[in-house]
């Protein structure tokens, strides 16, 4: 199988280089762009993001990418804040997000645990999660966040820190990971590889 063309949406956020390098380690050369036509024509799209939901949404509006992103048909992976942007709204800055996945991003209720939730935590995946294929149960991934997506019917993996929250979400061709696969060692690399190898069947179920 030839390697699919991959676009990383240039959200002007900070972790774009790490995401690009992680794919380069897999032998894929992603294009980093905010050009709607290039994003539309890619086989795969990554929506990265660190920072705040309000700032990221402002950037997407300024770049006139909101409608483009909502209408994508190919596999899309939102990473960290990029996953939160897929939801309806975020409590971080009380901002409307892309509304692709009908659930909300709330402040993590970690009781007396330190916040942000920072470090390596285990993830419990649903059996039908194609991005976790080949990984053992309770693999560790690197998290760093204070806001989290509520568990819903769209949750395909969960994580626990003070509360249970969505570690991965999915609706049709849109996927999200709250952790940073690009910084999660071999397990993270497997997720990115699985994303590149998603089939049409995977994205239509």
């Amino acid at each position, binding site marked *: 199988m030839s390697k699919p063309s991959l676009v990383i949406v240039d959200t002007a956020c*900070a*972790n*774009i*280089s*790490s995401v690009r*390098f*992680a794919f*380069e*380690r897999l032998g894929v050369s992603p294009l980093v762009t905010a050009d709607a036509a290039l994003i539309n024509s890619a086989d795969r799209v990554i929506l990265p993001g*660190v*920072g*705040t939901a309000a700032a990221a949404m402002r950037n997407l509006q300024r770049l006139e990418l909101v409608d483009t992103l909502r209408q994508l048909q190919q596999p899309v992976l939102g990473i960290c804040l990029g996953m939160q942007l897929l939801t309806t709204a975020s409590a971080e800055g009380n901002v409307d997000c892309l509304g692709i996945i009908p659930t909300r991003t709330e402040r993590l209720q970690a009781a007396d*645990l*330190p*916040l*942000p*939730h*920072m*470090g*390596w*935590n*285990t993830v419990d995946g649903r059996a039908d999660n194609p991005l976790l294929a080949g990984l053992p149960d309770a693999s*560790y991934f*690197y998290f*760093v*966040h*204070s806001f989290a997506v509520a568990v819903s019917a769209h949750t395909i993996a969960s994580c*626990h*820190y003070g509360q249970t929250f969505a570690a991965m979400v999915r609706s049709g061709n849109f996927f999200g990971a709250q952790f*940073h696969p*690009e*910084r*999660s*060692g*071999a397990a*993270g*690399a497997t997720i990115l590889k699985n994303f590149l190898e998603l089939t049409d069947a995977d994205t239509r179920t």
Partner: protein
Amino acid sequence: MLAKRIIPCLDVRNGEVVKGVQFRNHEIIGAIEPLAERYAAAGADELVFYDITASADARVIDKSWVERVARLIDIPFTVAGGISSIEQAQQLLAMGADKLSINSPALQNPDLINQLVDEFGQQCIVIGIDSFFDSESQTYQVYQFTGDEQRTQKTRWQTADWLAEVVARGAGEVVLNCMNQDGVRKGYDIAQLQTLRRSCPIPLIASGGAGAKEHFAEVFQQAAVDGALAASVFHKNIIEISELKDYLATQEIVVRR
């Protein structure tokens, strides 16, 4: 469960990894990239690179290695050293650094913490605190410019007050370097870390004093820190990371293996 983090620290001077004892008499350990790669492969949870001369020299670190490291390793890493502006921070993050650790520049201009947090988010702003126990006054004092012994100086801050200040300004994590213990490998400063843990609602990383596997177990069990940072025990192969993690697991400490 969230794993306790083992964090090798690479002190960088003139593009090479060095290590001193109580911040002095630095000896060269080796080149940056092979060490970074070795630690990532050995199971380190995260790496920290401190350019120990940068703040003292009032210049930003030579950054070219940051991108090389970001290309090479697949675990998070923090860069520290003389970062005193939004522009410098932007550059380092764009090169692939995951977090930035600010020490002396934050003491000189505490507003810098707020500015960096507003611009890049809390998750990537770490504050490094060099804390010295003054046995005469029985207080913990914050020091700055510790990378250069000629310029190292006490600040007006007691450690608990500065910790409260950086938390209030939005810092995402604190690395507490206990200077009395640094490089002497007699164990972390449990008493100090216990005290400061109680008033630290953000992740707290212990630094200074690791000499044996037991020291890591003690600091996790007794001071409830989120991570433990160490340099010489890893550089000199006194402790092997996978063996350390096997040992910590036998002590019922959650580690990623």
